[in-house]
């Protein structure tokens, strides 16, 4: 896709950097366990998860997963409805980090796009349970209802060309005429 006319957006790395800066600036708010702006994730986990989610829904003319708020969605749910998936996330993210360091000598968030794609495929093969969970949750956060923190400004719905806000009140009968 030609990117010349594309509105200026943050790249993944700028986004992550901004997130980290936000945390540093709000140092008092950064708890011991490194919980910056998150309810469940720590910053390192959030960086790795961002890298994976943005492979599942990458940026093009429309925002990537993390740009649309998917991390906020997943993090919120891990503190609420998806508490039962915490262990899989904790272990899966740790394993993803280890695989990245072993293959490329770097954290996932620092990898160039082709390497990150390769790593993501490797995670999909080696830890299918974790990957499928992240994949489902990424899609939920990207394509689901905005009220849960993802799909910011209904961005995916607009991308799909759906009327936003939706058109309601299409009844073709005049209710004031009384009932049958």
């Amino acid at each position, binding site marked *: 896709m030609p990117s010349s006319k594309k509105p200026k957006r943050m790249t993944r790395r700028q986004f992550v950097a901004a997130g980290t800066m936000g945390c540093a600036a709000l140092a008092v708010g950064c708890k011991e366990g490194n919980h910056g702006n998150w309810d469940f994730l720590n910053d390192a986990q959030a960086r790795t998860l961002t890298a994976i989610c943005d*492979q*599942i*829904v*990458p940026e*093009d003319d*429309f925002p990537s997963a993390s740009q649309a708020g998917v991390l906020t969605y997943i993090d919120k*749910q891990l503190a609420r*409805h998806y508490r039962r998936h915490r262990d899989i996330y904790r272990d899966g993210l740790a394993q993803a980090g280890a695989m990245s360091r072993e293959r490329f000598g770097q954290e996932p968030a620092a990898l160039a796009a082709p390497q990150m*794609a390769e790593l993501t495929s490797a995670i999909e093969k080696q830890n299918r349970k974790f990957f499928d969970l992240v*994949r*489902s949750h*990424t*899609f*939920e956060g990207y*394509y*689901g*209802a905005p*009220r*849960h923190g993802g799909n910011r400004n209904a961005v*995916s*719905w607009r*991308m*799909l*060309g*759906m*009327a936003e806000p*939706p*058109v*309601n*009140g*299409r*009844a*073709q*009968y005049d*209710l004031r*005429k*009384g*009932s*049958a």
Partner: protein
Amino acid sequence: MKRVNAVVVGAGAAGGIVAKELATAGLSVVLLERGKWYTANDCRKDDLRNQRTTVLGNAFGPEDEGNPRVLFDPHSGPRTLLPSEGGYQNNAACVGGGTLSYGAMAWRFMPQDFRMRSIYGAPAGSSLEDWPIGYDDLEPYYEKAEYEIGVSGDYSGSPFFGPRRRQLPMAPLPPNREFQILEPAAKRLGLHPFHIPMLRNSVPYNGRGPCMRCRWCVGFACEVDAKNGSQNTVIPTALATGNCALRTECMAREVLTDDRGRVRGVAYYDANGHLEEQLSDIVIVSACAIESARLLLNSKSRLFPNGLGNRYDQVGRNLQGHHYTGAMGFFDADTYDDVGPGASIAVADYNHGTAGLCGGGMLANEFIRLPIQMVDRMPAGTPRWGLRHKQSMRSFYKRNIAVMGPTQPIPSADARVTLDPAVRDKWGMPVARISGNVHPHTFEIGLVQAQRAELWLKEAGAVSTILNAGKPTVVSAGQHQAGTCRMGIDPQASVVNRNCQIHDVDNVFVIDGSVHVTNGGFNPVLTIMAIAYLASESLVRNWKGTGFRS
């Protein structure tokens, strides 16, 4: 607590009708419902939390906390599941039951659907049977459901249905774009397309307005209250008689019996978790097929050590729902028009009469697919994730049609609900354990149906298609659950008689989808409603009365 004539357990499709019929006939009724009463104001259209997409929970019950079930999969063994997980096989738990949030297709079964064994013979290993009642017995009650609850649609395009005395009370909604694409294609194939009958107002009816054609219908409550269920029709009527008390957030624990083997009431937990007893002359169990079976199995006593109605180990057997199959077609022009509810056109040419198949099923276009429901339904060859997946969503979200249908299930006695020996719910009661599967011929029928759907889509101009015809390892009961307290003449091979009365206890009835002998090639709710009217009428006719008036 005052003794009443009747306790009805479950304020769903059937329970609401029974409560209304008994209350208007003058019986005093207590209607127990484990869930809450939601109104149109609670409808909150949430793509991730409704009765269809439940990843963040069921909007209309039951909640995830304290309501587990166990699914026994032959490959992975028993799994304890939350109501928001697929294998749980949920319908709903609220006033209205499934009818608050259903898609509202309002099918009459065909005359053949009640005589499956006579017509086809039972495949080896199946429990295929005829019903003890036929289409003609039910016809007046189908009509009553169509008029009292309210159905729009038009069957006139199809010559395959049984005779009817009156047309539907409301015309169909105007056709959406999918209808316009699929109708000429069906005709070119020599099929007989028609407007799906729906429990949905197309014009003002019963004091409520018409559908305003929103995007979020199946799985959601309706904000303009145009979807007709028991919660906005028969239950308010029952309450208006003054003879019916609705108690919400009340969970029946067991049906109580006396020393002579007669039922004397129901023990239930109220909203505060207190155990209460409501004594009554009769009890009607209308808790939906899985929970009705569970309640009877949990109702053990000295005379009924294996549960009520279960002398011959029949309660919970023949669990069925629908094996849904079909195809998706992808088009090179927009098919999506954002005009709800989406499902609009059907053919019933394939329900019966194919050599080598015991039945078939109806095929119809699907309700609007929300974006989250499309992520795993992209054209063949689309990667599961990544840029090409995203591009594919963009290319095809508005350019696809899904034609699907419920395959006539061939029942098996091994598909069943039992009590789990270990897992308990939040009240300490053994939970339902679901195991077994319908007869494998069901999947052969399902595959043929999927191929027929594919053919229709291709004729309509689909540039590519994918088949949806899986082969689940455990029975798919879920929203169409039925069969667990089969109606029949032989007390050793069924649970209730043709009046829905348990064979060996004459003052307890099971009235809901549980009594279905077979489940047709159609969504079941209108048949459940018709049976509720029929059974209530015979109950009232035979009622001698005890003189009780509140």
